[in-house]
């Protein structure tokens, strides 16, 4: 812990591969040993969706909200919320935004050549 909002992210001590989804063994080399790892929060949008139909009343007042899979520059992919004034697109650059709810929230960066 203490790695919020990337609480599950670790790096394999044996081979160095980072991973986000919790596993007892490294999927690359099967080592059980890990070291703490805090990503920069910078990356690109792999894919995204704007949710209009909440899965349960707990999310009902938040719609619409955007969920995305983010490819971090350190070479791992993980899910998060996406904010920003531009329309999202695959490949758009993002950085970590304030994430008060415990999960990562990424902010779309302005497109190159734009104010």
């Amino acid at each position, binding site marked *: 812990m203490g790695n919020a909002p990337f609480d599950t992210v670790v790096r394999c001590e044996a081979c160095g591969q980072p991973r986000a989804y919790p596993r007892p063994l490294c999927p690359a080399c099967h080592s059980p040993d890990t070291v703490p790892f805090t990503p920069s929060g910078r990356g690109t949008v792999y894919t995204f969706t704007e949710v209009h139909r909440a899965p*349960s009343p707990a999310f009902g007042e938040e719609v619409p909200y955007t969920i995305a899979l983010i490819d971090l520059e350190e070479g791992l992919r*993980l899910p998060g919320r996406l904010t920003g004034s531009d329309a999202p697109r695959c490949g758009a650059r993002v950085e970590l935004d304030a994430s008060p709810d415990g999960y990562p929230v990424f902010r779309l960066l302005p497109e190159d050549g734009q104010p």
Partner: protein
Amino acid sequence: MRRGAAAIVGAGESRIGKHPDSTSLGLMAEAATDALAQAGLGFDDIDGLITTPTRIDGWMMPCTVVASALGIQPDFFTTVDIAGASGTAMVHQAAMAVASGACHTVLCVAGQNLLSGLSRDGAVAAMASKGSAAHAELEQPLGPPIPALYAMVAQRHMHDFGTTPEALAQVAVEARRHAARNPNAHKSRPISVEDVLDAPRIATPFGRLDCSLVSDGAGAVIVTTPERARALSRRAAWLLGSGYAMGHPWVGDSADLSTTAATRSVASAFATAGLAATDMDFACLYDCFTITVLLELEDLGFCPKGEAGDFVLSGAIGAEGALPVNPHGGLLSAGHCGVPAGLFHVVEAARQILGHGGARQLDRTDHALVHGNGGIIGVHCTLVLGGEDS
């Protein structure tokens, strides 16, 4: 599994749709009774049972509960639990059971009163909560309904290949057109591409009509040995090939959402069958969302990668097209009752081969491909069925 190791000799289903008086066990009894009647067999002929879990009932040992409800004491029994791939996997496992000698005639039956037991809102909430296809720590806190997870697959496919919302919509339109010829379909009112595009948004690029239904229903097939299938002296749907492939458990844990592990499950199935995609007369493809069908058409080899949108827009998957897909209407229109619903695709393929297609009977049914996928298009089981054993 060697080619022709087992055959489907009966296929049936319960009432499908909204049936407030229904229970999961009652629906399964209806489907089993129908399948046995089609086979000319009775419950006393069954010595193997395979079923799936249901979300509503939460039974421990579903296969035992179902056997008890049907009044049978099979020598072989198990519960298959790989979500949407369970329907095809049940047939594969039944074939392994009869080929091994563990038993000779297996009832594969699965069903659930998903609509009446939970309501549509309840089903949406349940499918997005504990035990769902969304990861408990990394995904569920973000609030994705299951459609959102598949919507991200669709969004990436649109980015990689230029797939359009109109192509996705055409999948739903064809499903509904097929369902109009299925008297047991949950939804049969015709829809247009515009209807699909204008439907209330669920998770972009999906609207409501890009998503499978929530229905009550059950399906059943009877799988037996080659010797018994021939002794029944009726048509049978022979298992010519089958294959599994494991991809990813979670949507964010996939390296490439635009290409699925179905490429591997189908390679195994065709290798066993000695057949190719071009030999298939029709296909029954798991269609939880419109994008699912496009990915399957590509990864199963029915069109080049990235071209499923054009393939569908050409009319290819219609009843008169080059590859009719889901003549019954699929999960998008005939009905979807959760995990058990993967069996409906097997039921339809078998019915077509057995000549029980009624108003929707296809002209050519020598070879069929049936495909199921579970999770967020992460696990796969493919079957090749045929009207002859050689």
